[in-house]
């Protein structure tokens, strides 16, 4: 508690109140993001109900290895983020552990973006961008790839913001300009990071798995 008092900000009288308010705020934000991505996934669902065969054919064109690798990368980044967040919250004076876990999280996030960039390059080469040059002829396949570019693009923007937030914490912690032990900023950033992971967990079966069995 004595260490945490350095982290107390206006308008809170007690550190526990401040911490609770931060967590409550990010959970409300997470709920609003659930609705944002949920609306996009609902649009996908309605389009898929109307064009089942086209969505199966389009899903087969995605690169399942890039998709699976990226899912594993994000799940692993959630592990390092969870350890960083819990170690910081427990106040074990484990500054080195928190910083190295934050750095690993950011590196895994960057790795995801690099794999995604290779995948986007392949998609563009295969003419999977909706438009006059589009490769597939099934009616509705362009809807799949329209949603693919939109949703994965918005997800990548979210992930980029997450990387910036995590790198900020790691850098300030390393430079000694921010106390990471018991700092709610680590937990709040972690909750945002897990949200981005959860969105991808649902995108994986929607984008990469359709049409594999047929």
């Amino acid at each position, binding site marked *: 508690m004595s260490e945490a008092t350095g982290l107390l900000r206006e308008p809170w009288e007690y550190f526990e109140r401040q911490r*609770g308010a931060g*967590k*409550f705020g990010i*959970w*409300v934000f*997470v*709920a*609003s*993001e*659930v*609705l944002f991505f*949920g*609306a996009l996934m*609902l649009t996908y*669902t*309605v389009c898929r*109900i109307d064009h089942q065969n086209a969505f199966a054919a389009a899903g087969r064109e995605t690169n*399942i290895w890039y998709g*699976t690798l990226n*899912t*594993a990368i994000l*799940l*692993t980044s*959630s*592990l390092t*983020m*969870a*350890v960083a967040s*819990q*170690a910081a919250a*427990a106040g*074990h*004076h*484990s500054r080195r*552990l928190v910083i190295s876990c934050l750095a690993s999280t950011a590196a895994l996030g960057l790795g995801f973006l690099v794999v995604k960039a290779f995948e986007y390059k392949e998609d563009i080469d295969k003419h999977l961008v909706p438009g006059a040059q589009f490769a597939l002829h099934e009616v509705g396949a362009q809807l799949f790839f329209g949603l693919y570019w939109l949703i994965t693009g918005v997800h990548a923007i979210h992930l980029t913001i997450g990387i910036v937030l995590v790198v900020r914490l790691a850098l300030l912690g390393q430079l000694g300009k921010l106390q990471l032990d018991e700092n709610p900023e680590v937990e709040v950033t*972690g*909750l945002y990071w*897990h949200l981005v*992971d*959860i969105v991808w*967990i*649902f995108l*994986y*079966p*929607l984008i*990469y*798995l*359709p049409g*594999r*069995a*047929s």
Partner: protein
Amino acid sequence: MSSEGAKLDRNVWKLWRRNGAIWAALLVLLTLSLALAYVPMGLLTPAAGIVIAVAKAGLVILLFMELARAKPLLRLAALSGVVFLTALFALTLADVLARQ
């Protein structure tokens, strides 16, 4: 000082063991989801993908995000997203699936 160091090591080991087990379960579910996608089971094939995604998200939300031991206010805030999402899907699909 050395006993304090040993205590820290023990705590760190506990952290990795607990979260590592969740991570391993997540990777097993990912592999299962990938394998099941190639098994022709009609509508059950896409359903399996979604059910496994729900299980994975459940692990992340309850254990990594620690909602399982969070205060009721936080659970309520988290639940609100799911409640409105359910309404969104239920009302839209009630229309779409009832057409023709």
